[in-house]
């Protein structure tokens, strides 16, 4: 036995509700040496999480490990009894979940939960465990390591909670830690701190790791080797540098290409700048009780002004909580503004959607982030897309059916999909249906609220390409709200940076490197690059970080 982990010809099967057996992992083999970090990368449904979980001998409900060997530290996890596996979990192998916020028990303190593993396995007395936990907090560069353990999970930020989850995994001195997309839910500025902390702690302890992710740039910073999975099979394995510079498999190349979406060509035939589609002036909106001056207690959007020109796109970028989604809802009238003016297509708009005319509502459509909740699960795709056609255009059955076909065609979906329900579609397909419904209204402006953030890199870049194409054909304008700079850069003519409810800067994509506002500088410099040395070489102005970073 030379390697810490040796997986040979692993097969996992799942049973569907019709009793049909599907093979989801088809003979995967991989090795992990002591202290090595490997990344499992692939689109959703590629089996990367299933493989990672199988290293703990765990198969999710409905799945069984049907063949192959999973040797971890000399023991075959697939052959052990559940009791023997439980003994190894937490001591030999540990797991860091995707959403730490959902994995902590809100009813007890963080320290209790971090040292729980030592209690279950009787590794050390509680006093010693607490000391060790504080050491871990310090090495994960958490603020106030002495006292943070006394807080409850809701009293710390998302990035801190993710690092605390890592502390929980590391307290049993595991030889292998499995990270399941631990930074996917974090802002870029926070992601860096978490990645740095993970990397230094793993390196210092010589701990081997499995890092599951679909973000190649993040993986490039932390992994020694990359394993590319698709359809339950290993497509390609290689060191990080090899994969990034000389990928052989077409799927890997596709992943790499998706990371650098093509820039939008500047409009040669752009209409004169005076042609304003939407103008908002000093709009303020927020939540909580309205005070004497007519403004709400908490201002999520604070005196923001912006202009969208016909046929051009505006990107709004900022971290979570900066007010960018509220801004979208204010423009759409879902959350009426407390102050300020909105002028759309030359005419002033009422603040609340309920008071706007049907035509005004039709011309401005909003597309939401989560297609899962934006599509009614009880209705087939054709009913979902056809409703705006009936409601706004009063089309009869035949015309409606033709138009649904056209719209499905526009968003590159096969016509047969119209009879399916949203639950029977993939994430990318759902987002396309979501978009087709907005197109059905024949809008002039579409507000896209983080529409690609729930999608894989490859799927997201395909959706972005689609949006660009449709814009050329239909002369639409988009307001594109995102926390992902590469997405915004790819599609927008102007980028507006928001921080704490205020507009801090507006620049064009080609001038991103020359941002003037300090927050924009921090934000733009925090976007991971496909360069393995990027994280180590990254120098950030500590003053900036302390001013704007939420650590």
């Amino acid at each position, binding site marked *: 036995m030379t390697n810490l982990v040796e997986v040979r010809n692993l097969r996992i099967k799942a*049973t*569907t*509700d*019709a*009793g*049909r057996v599907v093979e989801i992992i088809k003979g995967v083999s991989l090795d992990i040496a002591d202290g090595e970090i490997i990344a499992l990368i692939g689109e959703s449904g590629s089996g990367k999480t299933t493989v990672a979980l199988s290293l703990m001998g765990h198969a999710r*409900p*409905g799945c069984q490990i049907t063949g192959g060997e999973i040797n971890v530290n000399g023991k075959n996890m697939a052959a052990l009894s559940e009791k023997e596996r439980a003994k190894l979990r937490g001591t030999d192998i540990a797991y860091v979940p995707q959403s730490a916020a959902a994995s902590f028990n809100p009813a007890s303190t963080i320290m209790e939960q971090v040292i729980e593993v030592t209690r279950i396995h009787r590794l050390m007395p509680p006093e010693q465990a607490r000391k060790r936990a504080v050491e871990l907090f310090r090495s994960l560069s958490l603020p106030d390591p002495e006292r943070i353990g006394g807080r409850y999970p809701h009293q710390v930020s998302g990035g801190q909670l993710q690092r605390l989850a890592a502390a929980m995994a590391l307290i049993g001195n595991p030889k292998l830690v499995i990270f399941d997309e631990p930074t996917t839910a974090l802002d870029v500025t926070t992601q860096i701190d978490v990645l740095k902390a993970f990397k230094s702690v793993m390196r210092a302890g010589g701990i081997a790791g499995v890092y599951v992710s679909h973000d190649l740039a993040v993986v490039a910073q932390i992994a020694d080797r990359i394993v590319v999975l698709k359809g339950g099979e290993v497509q390609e394995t290689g060191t990080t540098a090899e994969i990034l510079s000389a990928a052989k498999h077409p799927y890997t190349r596709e992943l790499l290409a998706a990371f650098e979406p093509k820039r939008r060509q500047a409009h040669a035939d752009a209409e004169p700048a005076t042609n304003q589609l939407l103008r908002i002036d000093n709009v303020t909106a927020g939540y909580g009780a309205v005070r004497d001056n007519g403004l709400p207690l908490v201002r999520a959007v604070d005196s923001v002004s912006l202009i969208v020109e016909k046929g051009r796109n505006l990107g709004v970028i900022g971290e979570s909580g900066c007010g960018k989604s509220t801004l979208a809802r204010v423009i*759409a*009238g*879902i959350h009426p503004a407390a102050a300020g003016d909105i002028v759309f297509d030359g005419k002033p708009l009422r603040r609340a*959607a*309920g008071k*706007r005319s*049907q035509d005004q*509502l039709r011309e401005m459509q*909003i597309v*939401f982030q*989560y297609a899962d*909740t*934006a*599509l*009614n*699960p*009880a*209705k087939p795709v054709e009913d979902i897309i056809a*409703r*705006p056609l009936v*409601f*706004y255009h009063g089309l009869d059955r035949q015309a409606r059916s033709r138009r649904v076909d056209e719209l499905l065609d526009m968003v590159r979906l096969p016509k047969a999909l119209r009879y399916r329900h949203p*639950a*029977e579609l993939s994430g990318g397909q759902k987002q396309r249906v979501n978009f087709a*419904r907005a197109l059905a*209204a024949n809008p002039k402006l579409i507000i896209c609220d983080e529409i690609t953030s729930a999608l894989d890199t490859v799927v997201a870049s395909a959706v972005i390409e689609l949006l660009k194409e449709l814009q050329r054909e239909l002369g639409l304008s988009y307001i594109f709200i995102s926390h992902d700079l590469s997405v915004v850069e790819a599609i927008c003519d102007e980028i507006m940076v928001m921080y704490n409810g205020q507009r801090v800067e507006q620049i064009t994509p080609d001038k991103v490197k020359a941002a003037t506002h300090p927050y924009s500088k921090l934000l733009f410099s925090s976007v991971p690059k496909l360069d393995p040395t990027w994280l180590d070489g990254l120098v950030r102005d500590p003053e900036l970080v302390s001013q704007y970073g939420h650590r």
Partner: protein
Amino acid sequence: MARAIASRRSFLGHSYNLVGVVASLVILAWTLVAIFAPTIIPHPIGDIVDDDYFGPMRQGLWLGSDYLGRDMLSRVLMGARYTVGISLAAVSIACFSGVVLGMLAAVTGGWFDTCLSRFLDAMNSIPSKLFGLVVVAAVGSSIPVLILTLAVIYIPGAYRFARALAVNINTMDFMTVARVRGESTAYLIGSEILPNIIRPVLADFGLRFVFIVLLLSGLSFLGLGLQPPLADWGALVRENIGGLPFAAPAVVVPSLAIASLTISVNLLIDNLPQKIRDRDA
């Protein structure tokens, strides 16, 4: 988990199990009896056909005779009519009003929701049998009064249930999309919310049907339900209670009828056919 899947069979894209099938057959049988009772009863329900009272089961009088010597089989078959009919009418009114009001409250919110919820909570706090007693004592007992009383008693429950489900659906993005599209409240509740809550609502409908059968039987047992010579199952149990020391079938059979119907409805709700989502199978 694997065993549960294996014991289910599939039919028309749905999987079902044996318990559900048996339960639905029992319900179907009682429904047919309720519809065709007047044509299949061997004797008119008011006729005294036996010299003895609480007669045993024998040829011609398959379920024996009651406390006046009337044919028990005929009376149980006709009783199905009243028990199933009145309960079904009452549960339909209760669930329809409750669910519509519940969805309306969830979508409208604000004062309308608060006032309606508090009012129906107050209604809910009145014990159901007591409420029935008071109404029947005040306006007398007749079939329409019984139906309405039973319906009113069960509206608050149906309302609470539907409102709780609808509030969850109301926070979904597709509701926001529909609102920003400018849709009317009727469309929002009928077309966006209802299809998403219809399955639990139907399960609740069945459960409430059982409650109403039991409450109706209880009222009839107390003598406040149907008046003689008509009799539902609850009334049949009460009027023949004197046969208990003789182990007369007249008191056992209507009790079994109530039990078989309510238990079957419950079992069916727990074992409804499930749609198979795996299309490639």
